[in-house]
């Protein structure tokens, strides 16, 4: 071989080998030596983009109090998060703790995503005492004597179904922002006035995909009480095409036809900006909007919050409260269960730094805190007054408490997961085409109901004590709480 060529070949081979070695040598160890001891890095993921600064402060304070643990908190936009987190689990790169509310305990255990909150699986009584009685239930956040989750946000005030009014637009339209529309007719009249006297649109209503839920829950909850899965626990039926839902949707179509919905198939971000920019007078959404707008520089003295509007005949439904308030979980892939448990105890201290800063920033209401005592933000107080009104939100029945074997059942989840956004897509299609929701949604209801009933039958045949009866509560007055004593009867 020519010596010159041989030399070149050796150099190329060495370069390739060094590249391969470098690639193989990448470390994913999240413990590092710092000063005298080893510092553990606890990775936490969520999709609260407006809380990034808060998370930095929290991390810094926690590390100050626990020098051996460093917090690395990452916020991803919600739509991306729902794809990124599962992929992270798939590639064994999941964070140590994560925020997840799309599926419940049994699915997360089934997917092998979670481990108990504490290293040994049990939690001390002084931990559970931070929450109201009945907050820790088998199948919701406990399984086989181990505790896997804890309620984070409370569910009386926290949630969707509030109406936000832009002060500037209302003033220009000659409307009193402190006397908000109370009925559907009031809403139409206010819209007529806004359209006539201002250049603004009346309602900034996102209708792209599942963002349709913003206006939907702002209206339907006064007509019909159902779960966020379009399921009516009173009848045990999926209810997209039930009379209350059809009536509400027909009203939304009427608003659109009259030009009272801002035109366009917009997403929530666009609609929120439209409202904040004074291009729309009304926006329906949830408790979180305070901090979202605050982070965008739109302060709360520019708007007021009001209850959702009722049909002219009066309220016949309510918003739903569920037992499942679990949000943060400990990853099954964590190498630092001790650090995660230390952090969870710290963040759920009702008088601790996390809680104080959370309320200082008006991010919402937590389930382990005395909200009456802690909330100081005037708009959040307004929201609490609205949410506390009898019948504004009611406790939904919990099938798991009627039939404990539901914890092992997959039928309900399977009925939903095949086409998770089908209801919103059907509404979107019906809204732009002007077709009645009944014709567009019938196939979805049939598919879901059949999947649930057949799934439960199969599971019952395999020995589980489950049936449609577990999902049906005919005696329930759906404008009132389904209380724990009702399960006994």
């Amino acid at each position, binding site marked *: 071989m*020519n010596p010159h060529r041989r030399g070149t070949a050796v150099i190329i081979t060495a370069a390739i080998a060094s590249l391969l070695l470098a690639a193989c040598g990448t470390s994913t160890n999240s413990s590092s030596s710092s000063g005298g001891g080893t510092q553990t890095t606890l990775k936490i993921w969520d999709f609260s983009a407006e809380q990034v600064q808060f998370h930095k402060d929290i991390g810094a304070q926690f590390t100050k109090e626990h020098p051996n643990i460093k917090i690395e908190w990452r916020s991803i936009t919600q739509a991306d998060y729902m794809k990124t987190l599962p992929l992270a689990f798939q590639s064994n790169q999941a964070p140590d703790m994560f925020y997840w509310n799309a599926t419940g305990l049994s699915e997360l255990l089934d997917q*092998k995503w979670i481990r108990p909150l504490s290293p040994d699986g049990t939690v001390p009584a002084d931990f559970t005492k931070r929450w109201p009685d009945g907050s820790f239930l088998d199948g919701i956040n406990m399984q086989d004597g181990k505790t896997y989750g804890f309620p984070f946000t409370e569910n009386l005030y926290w949630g969707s179904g509030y109406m936000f009014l832009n002060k500037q637009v209302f003033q220009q339209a000659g409307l009193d922002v402190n006397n908000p529309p109370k009925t559907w007719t009031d809403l139409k009249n206010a819209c007529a006035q806004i359209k006539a006297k201002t250049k603004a649109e009346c309602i900034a209503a996102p209708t792209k995909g599942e963002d349709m839920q913003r206006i939907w829950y702002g209206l339907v909850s006064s007509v019909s009480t159902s779960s966020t899965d379009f399921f009516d626990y009173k009848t045990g039926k999926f209810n997209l095409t039930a009379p209350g839902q059809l009536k509400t949707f027909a009203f939304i179509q009427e608003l659109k036809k009259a030009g009272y919905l801002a035109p366009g*198939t917009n997403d929530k971000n666009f609609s929120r900006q439209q409202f904040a920019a004074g*291009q729309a007078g009304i926006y329906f959404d949830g408790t979180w909007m305070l901090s979202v707008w605050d982070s965008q520089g739109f302060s709360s003295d520019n708007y007021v919050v009001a209850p959702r509007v009722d049909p002219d005949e009066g309220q016949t439904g309510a918003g739903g409260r569920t037992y499942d308030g679990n949000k943060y979980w400990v990853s099954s892939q964590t190498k630092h269960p001790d650090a995660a448990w230390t952090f969870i105890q710290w963040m759920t201290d009702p008088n601790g730094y996390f809680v104080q800063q959370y309320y200082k920033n008006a991010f919402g209401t937590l389930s382990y805190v005395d909200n009456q005592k802690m909330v100081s933000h005037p708009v959040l107080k307004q929201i609490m007054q609205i949410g506390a009104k009898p019948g504004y939100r009611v406790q939904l029945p919990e099938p798991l408490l009627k039939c404990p074997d539901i914890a092992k059942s997959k039928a309900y989840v399977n009925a939903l997961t095949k086409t998770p956004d089908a209801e919103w*897509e*059907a509404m979107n299609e*019906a809204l732009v*085409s002007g077709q009645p929701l009944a014709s567009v949604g019938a196939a979805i209801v049939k598919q879901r109901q059949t999947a649930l009933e057949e799934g439960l039958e199969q599971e019952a045949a395999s020995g589980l004590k489950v049936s449609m009866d577990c999902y049906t509560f005919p005696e329930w007055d759906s404008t009132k709480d389904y209380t724990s004593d009702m399960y006994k009867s």
Partner: protein
Amino acid sequence: MTTIAPAPGRERVTESDRSPAQRAPERVDHSRERVRGLDRVWLLVFLAPFLLLYLGFTIWPLIATIYYSFFDWSGIGPIENFAGVDNYGSILADPLFWVSVVNTLIFALLTTVIKLPISLVAAILLTRKWLRGKRFFRTVFFAPLIIPVAMAGLIFTYLLNPSNGALNAILRDLGLVDEGFDVFANRWSALLVLVLVSIWQIFGQYMIYWMAALQNVPEELYEAAAIDGASEWKKLTRITLPIIKPVAVIITLLGLVNAMHVFGLVVTLTAGGPGTSTYVVSYFIYQNAFGRVPFDYGYASAAALLFSVIAFVLVSAQGLAVRRAQRLRKEYGV
């Protein structure tokens, strides 16, 4: 000087009609020479990176996709639930898959039918000697291609928004419309927007393809035609188009295949809506693979394979035309 007549039944004189003495000297195909000694090592060294990448990023994913498509698998954990051909059966019965297939084909055909002629016209204009500012126009037409698809989608989402989009504002200011027109509220107008935005973005790339093809047309043919008094139109229809025809077939094939991959614009402009009426196959696969929890890799893999079969049939039909075009290319020397 002797003239050569084409064989009966053929319009054009080919090499076989000439006597061996008149034929052009045969080109030696050096590509088939045996590689020996150290050159063989060098050949492997230079090919290895490509072969490794090809194996890792083309062959392996293809085999994996075929394998996954026979399982009910979420993408996480062991692949245990063998589903046989259930995924294929479900997809064939899924109306949304067929909506996606139809939309993809409509999109591919429309974009190809529109973008190729107009980019050819632009290329012809930009290769005219008399035109000034060619570089400027080339840059202007090519610029949209360097804008990321996601950004292009966002730009047009805002431009076309009926509330405060620039387009509707102009129409309102001109008194042409009273209310903003929501182009995304209807399947056909939404699809048309996807087509037009896609053409706007990719136009420059096809213009460059055509310009490359046009630059291969021998200049002396135009000079001879000019001496014979041929008009510009005659030069175009009798010289330019016939000579670039073989390349045109290949450009058409590229245009169709590229258009079938449409994804980013759908995500940013319509998200498959209104409802599900602008779903395309890539978006359908994406939604099934990542759009819900747990993921449904098996179903998505089966959908990907089924569409690949459909695309393969279409492309194979085109492949015949390409093969003929390649023969013509060699004949024309372009």
